[in-house]
């Protein structure tokens, strides 16, 4: 059956090719090839100009640029460590909060949701993805942060004060509502629509026959989701999560508003920090000389981090596929 269809397709394309003009075909191929090449060229150009711009900073500080916590414009001492830690920790918080919620949304929409509710919920989530990030930043600073300080930071800090570990990680000396955790939460809200809608599409594409047979042998909804849908969709879901992570790592405006913008390493997730993107957004306007080079170098590092994340995602997917 399959072979037959393939044959059919083959002959059909053959006839199409013969009947069309070869020049048009060649032009089409050239046009699509150059579109693809253009993307590569733009990417190469960006990487090259960032490396060129960042090179003086790397030459000046060497490997120490990555491990140093300094960022002192007056003494021209720059290091990326605080920003790298801030980027990774805020993105991790975003994933820890965002991924379970996204999966929940996707599973609810595809498996449990009554038909009349499906469209409103799905549309709302897609609308969330269309909100500009500056709006999230403003909302985070003016609306979310005061509420967060009052109802989360202050009670939590009072609760954990003096307790080892938690007394450090969850203690806020200044309950201002902004900080690494706030940034993570805002980021989570921003990446949920991406992960949720992609995951929903993936779950929708799983053949109904699989699900029906599982129900047919008496599985509960949980068992179907756990043992049938998740193994089927696993690889693609990792891809969706990685897309969300990519956005969380590079998000600039919203984070700049709510992370507190301090160049300090802090043990508490309530304390202010900074990310690579927020540092660049804050200082690029007024940067001159080595500071500009250091910001470019930060850009290179962010590029590298994002690239590494994508590579790890690929490796994960490849490993799952071979099993």
């Amino acid at each position, binding site marked *: 059956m399959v072979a037959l269809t393939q044959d059919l397709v083959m002959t059909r394309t053959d006839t199409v090719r013969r009947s069309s003009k070869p020049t048009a075909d060649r032009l089409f191929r050239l046009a699509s090839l150059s579109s693809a090449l253009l993307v590569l060229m733009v990417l190469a150009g960006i990487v090259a100009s960032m490396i060129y711009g960042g090179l003086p900073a790397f030459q000046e500080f060497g490997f120490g640029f990555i491990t140093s916590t300094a960022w002192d414009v007056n003494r021209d001492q720059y290091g990326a460590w605080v920003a790298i830690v801030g980027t990774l920790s805020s993105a991790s918080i975003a994933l820890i909060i965002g991924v379970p919620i996204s999966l929940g949304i996707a599973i609810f929409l595809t498996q449990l949701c009554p038909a009349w509710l499906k469209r409103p919920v799905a549309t709302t989530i897609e609308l969330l993805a269309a909100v500009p990030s500056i709006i999230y930043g403003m909302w985070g600073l003016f609306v979310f942060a005061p509420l967060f300080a009052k109802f989360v930071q202050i009670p939590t800090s009072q609760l954990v004060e003096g307790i080892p570990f938690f007394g450090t990680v969850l203690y806020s000396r200044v309950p201002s509502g902004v900080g690494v955790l706030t940034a993570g939460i805002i980021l989570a809200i921003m990446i949920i629509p991406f992960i949720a809608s992609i995951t929903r599409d993936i779950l929708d594409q799983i053949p109904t026959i699989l699900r029906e047979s599982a129900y047919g042998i008496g599985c509960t909804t949980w068992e179907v989701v756990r043992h049938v849908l998740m193994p089927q969709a696993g690889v693609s879901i990792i891809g969706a999560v990685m897309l969300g992570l990519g956005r969380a790592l590079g998000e600039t405006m919203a984070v700049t508003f709510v992370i507190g913008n301090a160049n300090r390493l802090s043990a508490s997730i309530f304390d*202010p920090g900074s990310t690579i993107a927020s540092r660049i957004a804050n200082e690029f306007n007024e940067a001159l000389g080595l500071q500009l080079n250091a910001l470019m170098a930060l850009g290179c590092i962010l590029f590298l981090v994002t690239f590494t994340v994508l590579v790890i995602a690929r490796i994960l997917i490849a490993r799952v596929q071979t099993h």
Partner: protein
Amino acid sequence: MKILSYAFAAGLAVASMATPAAAAEITGAGATFPFPVYAKWAEAYKKETNNSLNYQSIGSSGGIRQIRAKTVDFGATDAPLKGEELQKDGFVQFPTVMGGVVPVINIQGVETRQLKLTGEVLADIFNGKISKWSDAKIAGLNQGVKLPDATITPVYRSDGSGTTSVFTTYLSQVSESWKSGPGVGASVQWPVGQGGKGNEGVAALVKQVPNSIGYVEYAYAKQNNIPYAQLQNKNGKFVAPDDKTFQAAAANADWKSAPGFGISLTNQAGDEAWPITAPTFILVPKNPEKPEQVAEVLKFFDWVFNKGDQMAVELDYVPLPAALKQQIRDTWKAEIKGKDGQPLLRS
């Protein structure tokens, strides 16, 4: 054929309409601090002369970069360029308007203008050396004001900014430890506190965080009703920020003491002088490649000096003293020349 001739006629009509309407358009870029007043001036100027100004508030360093690259007709900067830099780039620099930076506070029960601070105490607060409002140094200045035994949260501008540059210039003048510590700059390494993006970010944090102190432009504090503190000036008097105390700071200044009028108005002498006052500057090339554009720039600022004071005051900026305006006009005539060696502004 008929369509063609219509098109031709239409083309002619458009062309003939375009020629007389070709009003001058000048472009400038730079400092964000004077942007509201530049925008207001530009609007009024366009109404009156039909000439327009396109000003992009991209930040002072950006303005300097752009005028060096000659992509704009003038650059605008909060921090003045030094004499040798002006010489090297062939720029003429002049101030346009002044403003003040004020310390804003959020302490329960303390009203605006009630808290008194000295420059040194302010520096120590932002340095983390004074960490409680109940500190003896603050209490000594504020007998009768009930201050809480609470940790102070300093709030600073996280984005590179002329406001920060002015504020840290002042702190360096009044505190040795600030000068040798964080120093002066559009962004410095703050030892304590939290950063907000822009005036609005600082204002939001100060409003939200109890027992915090920040600094914003005066216009911003006034228009948003944020409580601010009094400061002790160089003469030892406590003053509150307003247009009078800003003008007092400018009154005793010796504008000719630095090339390009590039003086700082922070920590000026005078009983009435507000200690954190600052002018903002314009940069234009001395021997421009496009003299007609620079002539338009000078015409615009000449118009501003004649008619712009009221508009500046409405936005809580402080106009320049009349004598200084005349000095600036003389400088234009003496230094900015066209290709023929004649001054660009003749009137």
